C-alpha cells in the first residue's frame, strides 16, 4: 500500500510539474504574440537625454510632402510607448519615395514633466529615394538641445 502510495505521489508530482512547464510555454507564446509590434519600414526612438530615460508618451506625427499642392499630407499620428518608440508608423505598401516630415510635440512633452523647453516642437524633414530600405529616425532630446541621425 505504501509502495503504491509512493508511486502515486511521484506520478502526481510529475503531472503537476508537466502542467507548470506547459503553463510557462503558453505564457511565453502569449507574451511574444502581444509584444510583436506591427512592421514598419520607418521607425523612430525618442530619448530624453536630459534625464537619461526614454521619452514616453510624446505625440508624434508623420507627413508626406505633396509636391503638386506644395503642402503636407498627414499619414499617421501616434505617441511613443514606455520605451520611447512608436511602432507601426507606416506600412510597407504606403512607404513610397518622397519627402517626409516627422513632427515631435516636444513642448507638450516637457510641459507634462513640469518643465519648459526651448523647442516648442521638432520637425525632421528627410528624403526617401529607396523605399525598399529600412529607415530609423531617432530623436535625442533635452530641454536645450537635440540631435538626430539616419539609422537602419
Amino acid at each position, binding site marked *: 500500500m505504501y509502495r503504491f502510495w509512493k508511486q502515486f505521489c511521484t506520478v502526481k508530482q510529475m503531472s503537476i510539474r508537466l502542467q507548470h512547464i506547459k503553463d510557462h510555454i503558453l505564457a511565453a507564446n502569449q507574451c511574444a504574440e502581444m509584444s510583436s509590434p506591427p512592421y514598419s519600414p520607418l521607425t523612430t526612438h525618442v530619448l530624453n537625454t536630459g534625464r537619461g530615460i526614454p521619452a514616453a508618451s510624446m505625440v508624434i506625427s508623420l507627413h508626406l510632402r505633396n509636391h503638386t499642392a506644395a503642402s503636407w499630407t498627414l499619414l499617421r499620428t501616434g505617441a511613443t510607448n514606455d520605451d520611447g518608440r512608436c511602432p507601426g508608423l507606416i506600412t510597407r505598401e504606403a512607404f513610397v519615395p518622397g*519627402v517626409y516630415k516627422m513632427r515631435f510635440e516636444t513642448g507638450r512633452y516637457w510641459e507634462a514633466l513640469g518643465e519648459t523647453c526651448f523647442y*516648442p516642437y521638432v*520637425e525632421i*524633414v*528627410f*528624403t526617401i529615394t529607396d523605399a525598399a530600405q529600412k529607415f530609423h529616425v531617432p530623436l535625442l532630446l533635452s530641454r536645450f538641445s537635440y540631435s*538626430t541621425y539616419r539609422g537602419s
Partner: protein
Amino acid sequence: MTTSKTGSLLTTHVLNTADGVPGARMALSLHRLDPQMALWNLVSKGTTDEDGQCSDLISRDEFTAGMYKLRFETRQYWESLCQSSFYPYIEIVFTITDLDQTFHLPLLLSRYSYSTYKGI
C-alpha cells in the same frame, strides 16, 4: 562649444562634421511666427561666412518675444559639394521669452545627421 560674436542678439554657426570643416556659404533664413495669422514672417536672410558663422540676423528693435524658426538650406549646400543629403532642409523652431539674453544656435551637420543646442 561655439559662442556668439559679441554684440549680436541671435547668431548661428554651421559645422560640417563629416568633413571637419565649417559649413561655409550655406543659405539660411530667420522667420518669426505671427500667432494670430498662424503664418511665418521672414525676418532676414543670410549666408554663412567662411567660418560657417552668420550674425546680425535680427536687430534689437525687431527682437521681440515669440516663436522663431531658423531654416538652413542643406540640400543646396551639399549639392554645391557634389553630394546628396538625407535632409533637404533643416528648420530649428525655438521660443524666445527672455530678451535680455543672447542666443547662439549652432548646427552640427553631416549628410545623415545633425544636432543643435542653445548656446550664448
